């Protein structure tokens, strides 16, 4: 194999720095003893203390986790069904409905759901946010599960059927365990997408139903409300996602591999 030239190494290193430096700065300033995100003054944990006494932020975090958990549960079930159906049957409508929400800009789904909920006279709030999150997470789960099924050895199922297993039994004992890493990866994705979502929540949230990204947005948007507490909550959010990924990579190592 040819060696990669120094120039490419250098350029790639710069791009990696471009990817990580901004996040490192957010984390660093969460420990900075100054309410301006500008200059390093000294180490402090004050922003974290402030955060743990900030009822608005804690309520927003509770909302986010509750929405994320329900979204994860429902969209994993529906997404797995969709992925299996797309793999097993020749369908026309389902693949379109599953894939389009992923392909179009999020804002389009946000505004159409806003019109829809208002038309139904539904109060915008946690329920409307959760229903919307499920709608855009189904597709991501379905894609991961389908690609897992496509990589599966179909003869195993046939062998089980030849040995007398019913279709349901063959699914439970053979297919399900084999695609489990895909389902776990899909569930992880659904949970992360839900707790991260800003655009769709922005349009489907009513008054007084803040999620964490919405609360971060309102503070970042109005500089008076902005202080490194936002950095602290950002750091914790990154830690949460990172540890989720670590747990999944321990429980189901093949779940995180994209190309097998």
């Amino acid at each position, binding site marked *: 194999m*040819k060696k*990669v030239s120094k*120039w*490419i190494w250098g*350029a*790639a290193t710069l*791009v990696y720095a*471009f*990817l*990580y430096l*901004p*996040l490192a*700065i*957010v984390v660093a300033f969460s420990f900075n003893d100054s309410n301006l*995100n*500008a*200059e390093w003054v000294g180490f402090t944990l004050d922003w974290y203390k402030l955060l743990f006494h900030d009822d608005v932020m804690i309520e927003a975090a509770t909302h986010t986790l509750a929405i994320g958990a329900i979204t994860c549960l429902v969209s994993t*079930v*529906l997404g797995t*069904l969709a992925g299996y*159906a797309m793999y097993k*049957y020749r*369908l026309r409508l*389902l693949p379109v*409905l*599953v894939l389009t*929400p992923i*392909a*179009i*800009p*999020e*804002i*389009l*789904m946000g*505004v*159409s*759901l*806003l*019109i*829809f909920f208002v*038309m139904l006279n539904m109060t915008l709030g946690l329920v409307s946010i959760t229903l*919307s999150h*499920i*709608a855009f997470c*189904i597709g991501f789960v379905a894609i991961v599960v389908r690609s897992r099924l496509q990589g599966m050895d179909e003869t195993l199922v046939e062998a089980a059927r030849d040995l007398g297993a019913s*279709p349901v039994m063959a699914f439970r004992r053979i297919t399900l365990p084999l695609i489990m890493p895909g389902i776990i990866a899909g569930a992880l994705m659904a949970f992360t997408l839900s707790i*991260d979502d*800003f*655009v769709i929540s922005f*349009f489907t949230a009513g008054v007084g139903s803040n999620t964490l*990204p919405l609360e*971060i*947005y309102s503070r*970042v*948007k109005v500089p008076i409300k902005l202080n490194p507490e936002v950095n602290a909550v*950002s750091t914790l*959010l*990154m830690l949460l*996602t990172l540890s989720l990924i670590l747990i999944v990579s321990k429980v189901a190592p093949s779940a*995180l591999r994209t190309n097998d």
Partner: protein
Amino acid sequence: MQNRIQRAAKWLISGPPLLYLLIFFAAPSLIMGFAAFRFGGDYGGLMPLTQTDDAGKTTLLINLHNWHDFLTLESFGRFFEDSIYAGLFLKSFWYAGLTTIICIVMAYPLAWLIARSPKKTRDLLVLLVILPFWSNFLIRVYAWMIILGPQSYFSKVLNSVLAVFGVEPVSMLFSQFAVIVGLVYVHLPFMVLPLYANLEKHDMALLDAAQDLGANAWQRFWKVTWPLSLPGIWAGTALVFIPALGMFAIPDLLGGTNSIMVGNLIKQQFLDSRDWPFGSVLSIMLTLAVLLLAAFAAWAGSRGKEKQ
């Protein structure tokens, strides 16, 4: 009998997700498409099509004879009358296009390095590209608000350098520059991954052959690697250009008043001025643009594959 069970199983499996997406994706989309032809309500939103009397009985106001009192092409007319709106679309295309080109330039060395690394380090390098993508979108935008802010080290160093040349200090935040930086930062992984997946499959013997035939490094890249990588480039372009085109949060937070995109205008119509019919017209136009682009990218991608 067997057939009926199989058909029942098919509906049991595909039915629930189908029903959910029909209700919470297809129906809202159709309703929004319809809203573009309706009149605005007295207090914003939409003019009602039904009326509920004191007894709680709801009647439909629109019928076959009076439908023209309820449906209109006015909002579409407004879109085409003023060139401001077409201009805003063009500007959004320009931002998304510039973002895509910068992403290609930045993603190429990275994807090349990953594709040429030994199998073990490859997984780690890919993970390092994906990891920032798992962190919250707003945090990533906020990070750039800090970096480009007037009091940041970066701004101070830049402005002191400019001062040496006698240039007035510049504000980097709330500018087109900041919007493009934000768009590139958020979308870069979507260009690296498909490009890497493509470059990984290249036959290195082709490059050796080109070298033996006297091609220099630039010729080897431009005549061999680049044409072969076009399907990856097109896949990445679809993944970067389309979401970038509809972005509203990045111009909202990093841009100034002169760097808004279509997404900002749509948000404004729905939440601030509450002109839903016009907001729906803008959304339809954005949808059409996206569909055309997706079809083009699919066509260009498949053409590239045929050539191979």
